[in-house]
């Protein structure tokens, strides 16, 4: 186990290095820069600013400087938000996104998986058809449509839900539904198809022939096998949802990470783009690592040490 973790840690570092490198050079390859304006800044001022942020140096030198800083955990100052470091921006905005995201992930798990199981059990009966009707809607309707409709119907017309901020639990309903809608539906469909496949297996017949109740057959013998594809989807999903969604945060006026990220891309706020990307990448590789460990716990045939 120790060897496995050490090996994985090194490969995670390599992955991150790739992410940083590719993002850094792509970003610099894109036309424009943080201080290019329609009305150009006076040359002396621009020179001072560029010197201040090392923008006057060749790109490869900037890259090496950035790598050194990142290795120390310093994501640098924001170019656009004067007085803010990227670390501070993430520290301030991530918890906001994570709160909405955390509730969404919980909803995905505690609703999506059971809905999938019930659908599989009642295959082609009305319960299944009803659930799959909504799941199909959830997968096909984009979050900006769901979000806008919620604001329009429940906030503007019925006036029963607040439409901006996160001050009470009621504020969470709209963003959570918009954020979880797709994943919830996807997980329900994934669990259903996975369960249906597992229920055809010979060992399910064996379990039934042992006189186990249908409930035990399902929750013990089928579920553990059926969850493997679901877990591989949910792992990266956690990273994606917790780091926030630009669309949902925009619609419900939540100052989370997603909003800042997209704004920073528009502004060419190099350090924020890099910082948020690195943060998301770290989160993602850690979640993939967690998924691998869970695999090993669920299926003994998957040996971590090899």
């Amino acid at each position, binding site marked *: 186990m120790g060897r496995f973790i050490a090996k994985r840690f090194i490969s995670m570092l390599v992955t991150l290095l790739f992410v940083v490198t590719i993002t850094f050079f792509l970003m610099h390859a894109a036309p424009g820069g943080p201080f290019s304006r329609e009305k150009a800044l006076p040359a002396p001022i621009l020179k001072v600013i560029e010197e201040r942020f090392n923008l006057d140096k060749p790109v490869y030198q900037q890259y090496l400087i950035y790598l050194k800083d990142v290795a120390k955990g310093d994501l640098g100052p924001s170019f656009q938000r004067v007085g803010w470091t990227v670390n501070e921006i993430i520290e301030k905005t991530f918890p906001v996104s994570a709160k909405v995201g955390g509730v969404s992930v919980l909803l995905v798990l505690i609703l999506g998986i059971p809905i999938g199981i019930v659908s599989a059990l009642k295959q082609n009966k009305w319960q299944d058809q009803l659930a799959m009707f909504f799941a199909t809607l959830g997968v096909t309707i984009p979050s900006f449509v769901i979000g806008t409709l919620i604001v329009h119907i429940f906030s503007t017309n019925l006036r029963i839900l607040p439409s901006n901020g996160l001050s009470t639990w009621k504020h969470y309903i709209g963003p959570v539904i918009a954020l979880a809608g797709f994943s919830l539906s996807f997980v329900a469909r994934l669990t259903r198809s996975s369960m249906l496949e597992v229920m055809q297996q010979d060992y399910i017949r064996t379990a*039934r022939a042992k006189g186990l109740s249908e409930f035990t057959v399902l929750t013990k013998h089928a579920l553990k*096998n059926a969850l493997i594809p679901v877990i591989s989807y949910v792992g990266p999903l956690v990273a994606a949802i917790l780091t926030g969604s630009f669309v949902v945060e925009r619609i419900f006026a939540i100052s989370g990470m997603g909003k800042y990220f997209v704004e920073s891309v528009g502004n060419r706020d190099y350090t924020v783009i890099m910082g948020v990307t690195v943060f998301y990448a770290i989160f993602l590789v850690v979640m993939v690592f967690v998924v691998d460990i869970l695999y090993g716990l669920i299926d003994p045939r998957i040996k971590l040490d090899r």
Partner: protein
Amino acid sequence: MLWTQDYVSRGDFVENKNILEVKNLRTSFFTHVGEVKAIRGVGFHLKEGEAIGIVGESGSGKSVTSMSIMKLIQDPGKIVDGEIIFKEKDLVEFTQKEMQKIRGNEIAMIFQDPMTSLNPVFTIGNQIIEVIRKHKKMSKKEARKKAIEMLTLVGIPSPDKRVDQYPHEFSGGMRQRAMIAMALSCEPSLLIADEPTTALDVTIQAQILELMKNLKNEINTSIILITHDLGVVADVCSRIIVMYGGLIMEEATSEEIFYNPKHPYTKGLLKSIPKIDLGESQRLIPIEGTPPDLLNPPKGCPFAARCSDSMRICKEKQPPYFYTNEEHRAMCWLLHEDAPKTDTKAKGGIAIG
């Protein structure tokens, strides 16, 4: 020659009681294209401590028969008619809840492919303990001890270590032994083995059969052995039932089946066993045609289309059972006293599998 229209229970003539009696069993699958009549009126009996074999090619209805006895026919399948009298109670009338107390406890089953019949994500011990704890009032510790005992009984080396291993750490033969241990752990009075050796290589097959034979005597369990391999049943079973097209074609003692078969289908099956004393040039002749379509089963004998001796009546009317002695019956018009005498020994042959 006896002349009976239907199968008559003959339990009264023998000393041992019938543990199982299947009467006129019909099982169908209601698919979207229509009713597939997989079992079309099957009747047989099994005495306490007896081992019988059910033989037939794929699709003849042997597995559906065994799954019907367990009442494990899944949607869209259904037992349409008939009785399954087990220990004087009709299982057809049982609810699924009542059947759960029978399955694994009084009637246990082992399956064809030990590679896929065990759940890969639980240890062998867990899966054996589970069935013991379901049916017997035992603590976890006692059940574990019993599980190790069962693994010892089926000849698994160092069972106290093996009990905590997962199925993928067992070889095919070992897994089938573990399956047998699991099936016998609650000391069932009936064991249904559905092609238990088909997926194993020949040397392991012999070992598993030897094991089943020994355990049968040791635990006094009745056995229904389902296979398409006549060689397998000959060794273990005292009586053989030959199935085809959802019907029992012939039933007799093993000896009678091998040395005095009456039905052309049985004769075909026998010719398909390669014999060591036949010359190298001797070939197994396949029989022409395919098994009948059970969506629209033939009006007459299901084998008529492939039978080299079929007569006009064979295609028009399903033959009754003709008894040649107390324990030997066959569903074939050729046994009628007006039928021409034929000898099919030189003709036909059938590849089974």
